């Protein structure tokens, strides 16, 4: 019996080592290669919100820069570990996820701002009593769950009015139906994405008041993350990638229709309702810029904002962010043009 | 089929396979209803699962998850008798059949013979007027079987319960019973009712006696369906037999009862 379990253990170990020996190890970039392969992780489903990437792909900006780009769809937690491991070269992830991840030793850095305004907001009926963060006290609020960027945003919003989550009646909507609940009057307020639910509700004749966080606590929105190892080995390719992407982004800002066309060319399924996709894109575009990026260029990272956000998140109840964590461990501007 | 079993007596039912011996027992115990005819005990017709009848099956059929004591107490438990009372009764029954030291043993810890004793004790639990045994010792080895035959007689002497024993063993039938009912093969009919001319108490010696052998051959003939031939053979053997009887039977040493 003992012998059998010893043999089993060895076999198990052997199988795991063999199966995992495909763990990627960084190899130096050979010179000069026809096209450098890059895997890019974009959110958990394809969306017109990633129009700049689709445009750069469709218009050949990546190819011209010597890059062979393939897209993957992953949820945030997976993407962060994949990028940290080097299995995905660059991904779009929440800034608010980067902070705890780096704090726990995941070797990534935030290399370019995509969403210069924080997408998560709180909405309430426009003709209702809630007009500011302070008004939330004693009211009900729908949220998918007490986790993620919307939860962090909510705590920041409430803190600005001297409130905590205990002052609000929080209701969980794990199926993400909190906006519908708001419309039906089940809750007084709800978390939402600036370019999503308020649009849909407005289309149905339900106007909303929107409470944003940017002026209160400048939380970092989604941006490009890269593994620290990949930063070293594929630096030039990544720089080219960022440049091409930002170029496409600027072009779309100037002419949203370009973004729509290239998105549908890349993801034909999204072509089934051009009008609503265009509306989403048009609501998304303003979030790509802020006073800071207008001053310092697309993709620029506001280190001051990051410092404030880091301090805020460190102070949240249940936070495991080490006090020694500094902003220069979180972000890098070396890839920016 | 028609016969009577005298009260406090022992009758054996002897027959080949397929003669319906087991069915007969189920009819008498009330597990089956006859299509025609009557079965009565003391002139009262037998009801469904009549509790005047104690039934011992061919296999012990003990509940494997219960101790010997609780197995014997089982029929009393079903009848609503209280725990203390039924345990006490079960204990005395176990003593009666000679397994009182194994009251807390589970069936799987007991030998085949002991299990069958427990089954007999259980069948006596509700003090039945008649004890039916369906080839109860057929699963035991020959030596044990002989011993159990003797013990059954012993039990009968102590309790006085009417006993009806189904068997396919000639020797067993003759040794135990007052009368042997012989059945034919399918469809079973009563072919003969042969009285056993042996005195009581029965001894092992009697197994060797002429009367035993004669009764056995009568039964054998009925089973084979040749009673007439037997009568002829009897007539031929009579003078020789008489000589032997007057000369006296040989000395006999019975390992169970000592020198004769």
């Amino acid at each position: 019996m003992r012998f059998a379990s010893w043999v089993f253990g060895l076999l198990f170990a052997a199988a795991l080592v063999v199966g995992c020996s495909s763990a990627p190890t960084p190899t130096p970039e050979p010179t000069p290669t026809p096209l450098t392969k890059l895997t890019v992780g974009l959110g958990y489903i394809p969306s017109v919100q990633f129009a700049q990437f689709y445009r750069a792909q469709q218009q050949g900006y990546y190819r011209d820069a010597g890059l062979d780009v393939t897209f993957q769809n992953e949820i945030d937690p997976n993407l962060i570990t994949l990028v940290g491991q080097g299995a995905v070269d660059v991904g779009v992830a929440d800034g608010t996820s980067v902070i705890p991840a780096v704090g726990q030793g995941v070797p990534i850095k935030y290399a370019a701002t995509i969403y210069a305004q924080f997408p998560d907001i709180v909405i309430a009926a426009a003709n209702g009593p809630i007009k500011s963060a302070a008004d939330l006290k004693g009211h009900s609020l729908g949220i998918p769950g007490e986790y993620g960027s919307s939860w962090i945003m909510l705590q920041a919003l409430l803190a600005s009015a001297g409130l905590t989550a205990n002052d609000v009646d929080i209701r969980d909507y794990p199926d993400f139906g909190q906006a519908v609940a708001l419309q039906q009057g089940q809750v007084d307020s709800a978390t939402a994405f600036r370019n999503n639910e308020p649009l849909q509700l407005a289309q149905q004749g339900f106007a909303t008041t929107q409470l944003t966080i940017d002026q209160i606590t400048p939380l970092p929105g989604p941006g490009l993350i890269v593994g620290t190892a990949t930063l070293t080995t594929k630096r030039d390719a990544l720089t080219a990638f960022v440049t091409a992407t930002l170029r496409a982004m600027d072009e779309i800002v100037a002419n949203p229709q370009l973004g729509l066309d290239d998105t549908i060319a890349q993801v034909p399924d999204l072509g089934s309702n051009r009008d609503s996709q265009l509306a989403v894109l048009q609501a998304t575009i303003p979030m790509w810029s802020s006073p800071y990026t207008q001053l310092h260029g697309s993709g620029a990272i506001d280190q001051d904002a990051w410092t404030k956000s880091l301090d805020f998140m460190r102070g949240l109840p249940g936070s495991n962010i080490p006090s020694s964590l500094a902003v220069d461990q979180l972000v890098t501007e070396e890839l920016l043009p | 089929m028609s016969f009577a079993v005298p009260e406090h007596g022992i009758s054996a039912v002897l027959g080949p396979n397929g003669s319906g011996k087991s069915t007969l027992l189920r009819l008498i115990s009330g597990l089956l209803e006859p299509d025609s005819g009557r079965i009565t005990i003391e002139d009262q017709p037998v009801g469904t699962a009549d509790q005047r009848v104690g039934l011992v099956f061919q296999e012990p059929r003990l509940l494997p998850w219960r101790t010997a004591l609780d197995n014997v107490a089982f029929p009393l438990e079903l009848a609503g008798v209280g725990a203390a009372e039924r345990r006490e009764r079960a204990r005395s029954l176990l003593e009666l059949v000679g397994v009182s030291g194994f009251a807390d043993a589970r069936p799987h810890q007991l030998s085949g013979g002991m299990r069958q004793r427990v089954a007999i004790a259980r069948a006596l639990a509700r003090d039945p007027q008649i004890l039916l045994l369906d080839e109860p010792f057929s699963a035991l080895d020959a030596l044990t079987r002989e011993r159990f035959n003797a013990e059954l007689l012993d039990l009968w002497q102590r309790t006085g319960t009417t006993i009806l024993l189904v068997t396919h063993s000639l020797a067993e039938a003759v040794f135990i019973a007052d009368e042997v009912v012989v059945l034919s093969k399918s469809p079973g009919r009563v072919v003969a009712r042969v009285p056993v001319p042996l005195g009581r108490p029965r001894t092992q010696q009697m197994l060797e006696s002429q009367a035993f052998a004669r009764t056995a051959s009568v039964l054998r003939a009925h089973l084979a369906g040749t009673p007439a031939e037997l009568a002829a053979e009897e007539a031929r053997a009579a003078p020789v037999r008489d000589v032997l009887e007057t000369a006296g039977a040989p000395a006999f040493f019975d390992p169970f009862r000592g020198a004769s």
Partner: protein
Amino acid sequence: MSSTRHAWRSTLLSVGSAAVVFVVAWKLIVVIANYPPFILPAPEVVAQRFVSAWADGTIAPHALATIQEIVIGFVVGAGLAVVVGYLLARSPLAERLLSPYLVAAQATPILALAPLLVLWLGTGLAPKVVICALIVFFPVAVSTMVGIRSVDRRLLELGRSMRATRWQVFRFLELPAAMPQILGGMRVGATLAVIGAIVGEWAGADKGLGVLINLARGSLFDFPLMYATLLTIALIAIVLYLLVVLAERVLVGSWR
């Protein structure tokens, strides 16, 4: 040494050595493949986090919530299953009528049903109990049906010869005879119930070990905590399984 103690000792020995081999293999993999802690932490790191997470009360409230879901769900599911299993065993009509529904319910993946249940029943205890009960139901019902059906006919005849009532037959003959099978089904059910609870939590909950896994993975990026939570879940499943084994020992003993 009595045979029971001997059996326990040899079980402990084989389980212990299997555990040791597992931990050693784990460590070897981490070292050989040079995995960073956010992919696969070393066993001692997880062990340390396990201890600290229990000590500072991180895991305890979530574990309590999940255990509650499992126990209630198991009791409800297994209880119903024994009743239904008995009906199926005794009535061929019931079996013909109910079997298609049972099989369909079993074939539908719990993962797909869970969000629907949360939609209908909210994010409280109810949907998790339902999911656990559903997942436990089939194996226990089937094993009950098989167990009741395989009761020795000769014992049933014995019961008839003693004029046992329907209830007495069930209580004194069928149930004890079928107990090994029923408990066998419950062994399977106990481990499945753990899965059910976690899946139910993933569909929507604010506490529980499934929630903690998600928090550790996606909010805190505390991977040792994630593994410590997995370890906790495994331990709960093992304890439940052993409880059923213990029940079997007590209720059935060894009458084979």
